[in-house]
């Protein structure tokens, strides 16, 4: 599903180009050109099939940022100390929440996003998974406290058409460990996207919640995205937050010496 709205300001240049292209097309042939939304970060045009601004509005800035960052892939032999530390931490989470079938097979490239020369931000891994649903392009992006998992099947199953809840449930049960705990519901359809969440067992205390209890999902009919907070369950040390401020400074943390 596509949306022709543009983000004001930064994307203005990109919108003008689109208009010119459309004008030329209409003059020559009567065709309907599928309109692709452009989101610009760092003055680079990128294509998304979903509007990250809607995702930011609905799920928070950090979740949207993870989807729109431009990741710089760095071989392990060239990673800085902070990048290596962040990638070790990120791999720990992939091992902890992703099912065996959806684990990366062998070494996969890791991409990093840095807002500044020494600041943290995010790590992404991308790899295909082939299974009973065919080939799925998987992207797992993480910042200090937030993980997003985007799953885009090469061929959208026909029985998922107009049933995003089914798509989210079938993908979720394959992607995540503890599938017996996964119970998803659709919360609403808004702005061309379907949104949902994990059903938390009644009576579960706030302190008892782990990452799966924080799961939210969204879908545009061609891709399903999931986001969770890095909660480890009862007695965890970190004060997990989806706010912007605590989700920065990931690399820098490991550049500093141990507290004295």
């Amino acid at each position, binding site marked *: 599903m596509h949306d022709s709205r543009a983000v004001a300001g930064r994307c203005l240049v990109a919108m003008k180009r689109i208009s010119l292209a459309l004008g030329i097309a209409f003059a020559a042939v009567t065709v309907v050109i599928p309109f692709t939304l452009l989101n610009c970060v760092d003055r680079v045009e990128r294509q998304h099939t979903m509007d990250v601004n809607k995702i930011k509005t609905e*799920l*928070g800035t950090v979740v949207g940022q993870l989807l729109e960052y431009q990741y710089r892939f760095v071989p392990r032999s060239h990673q800085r100390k902070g990048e290596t*530390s962040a990638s*070790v*931490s990120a791999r*720990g*989470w992939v*091992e*902890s*929440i992703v099912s065996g079938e959806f684990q990366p097979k062998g070494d996969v490239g890791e991409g990093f996003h840095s807002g500044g020369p020494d600041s943290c931000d995010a790590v992404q891994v991308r790899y295909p998974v082939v299974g009973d649903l065919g080939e799925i392009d998987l992207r797992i992006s*993480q910042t*200090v*406290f937030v993980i997003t998992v985007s799953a885009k099947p090469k061929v959208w199953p026909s029985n998922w058409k107009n049933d995003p809840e089914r798509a989210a449930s079938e993908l979720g049960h394959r992607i995540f460990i503890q599938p017996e705990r996964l119970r998803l519901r659709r919360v609403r359809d808004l702005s061309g996207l379907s949104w949902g969440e994990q059903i938390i067992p009644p009576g579960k205390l*706030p*302190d008892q*919640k782990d990452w799966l*209890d*924080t799961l*939210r999902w969204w879908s545009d009919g061609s891709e399903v995205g999931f986001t969770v*907070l*890095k*909660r*480890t*369950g*009862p*007695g*965890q*040390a*970190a*004060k*997990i*937050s*989806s*706010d912007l401020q*605590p989700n920065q*400074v*990931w690399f*820098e*943390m*490991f550049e*500093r010496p*141990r*507290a*004295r």
Partner: protein
Amino acid sequence: MRYYRAKEPYDEAAIAAANAAIAPETGGRALTMGPEDAELRTKWMQAYKDAGGKVVEVRPKRKKPKDPVNPCPCKPISSIRLVSLTFKSDHNLLKDYTTDWKDGGSRYPKPEWIAGGAQHPVSHTMGKPVSVDVEIEVAPADACVETGTLRGEGPDGMVFEKTGVTFKPGRFTVQLTSDKDLEKKVRAFDFQIEWSAKTDDTGFQMRSSRSSTTTNKMFVTYDTPYNDTPYDNGVTRKRMEWACTLCDGDTNGHASVKKIHDSTGSFDLSASTPSPHWKIAGGAHAQCMDLGKFYMLGAEMLGLRSGEVVYLYPKVGKTTKETTSGADNDRRSVAGSVPAHAPATTHNSSNPNEEILLVDQSGGWNNYEACYKFTHPDSTGTMKTRYYAGGANDYDTAQEVMKSVCKETHWTFEGSGGGWSICTTPGPSPVDVW
């Protein structure tokens, strides 16, 4: 050969006559049944019969003679060979799993040393003697039995020796105990014993050689490894070897716990829980409470059990609370907070309470700082308690930990998405600056 037996009732007069007939030779003593009186017994019986006593003739049944071939005399011992060695005083817990940091595999079988075959490792408590069973084989099969001495020279002047050993043909086992205790220090080393034997009668010797030298990897710990916490601490070779190699030479528990503590990096607030915790030894990241649990598991692998994981919370007013609970932040009800929240506030929409948050020196948001609190005599013998902070340094008191780790504290409230935010209105924010 026939002989006569007196028939009852015996004739007293004939008895007297028979006794008188042999009296010059016996002097009146009673006859024995021994071979020395056989001739006299025959003479007595004849005199009894001649004196009218009734007798019965006895003709023994025929018997075939036994094998007339006598066995040859035994041969001298031609060899004494070491067959196997079994440790009797080890922990008998060590498993052969080395693939990764998980628990798995099977206990190493006994015997731990077999000639031409297996050489299995063992773990053993320091400061204790070592007991072993040595299986010996003596040849040839018709060797003469001899007594002698079996001796083993172990590491650091340790001697296993037994005299009066019966060296008989075939295989048999000898139990020996070292004359000295293992040195009181953590070790990972090759426990080698050079065996020799010597018989007393013929002086046959099994000299120490490569074939009579037993070698087993030995891991020496403070005490028997423990696996009595809720966290997996199965005794695998990979784990034991890591701990004993890291702490090789240590003579004091605090020195070893410090090495285990210092082997890990800083805490990673964003880390998942390593499963098992032993993955931390291989470089997995962890939050402070999981680091503390790993320190505890490493210490218990070495047989040190006098510690626990504690959670330190900053309190309003810059004091420190120490508990064994991971959910003991200081709290205040949003509804009745001091200072008061506005009547219409979202701070209690997901959770009626706000909690104190610890901002560490790196700007990270923490609920607490977890430590492995270990109490043990130090090198002078004085009982000492030390807080080995998860991913930070080690300290003498909880307050010292907090002063080092905590930068400032804030009140926080929980949002609808499960994340937390700092309460700045009414705050105060920060609550305390440490």
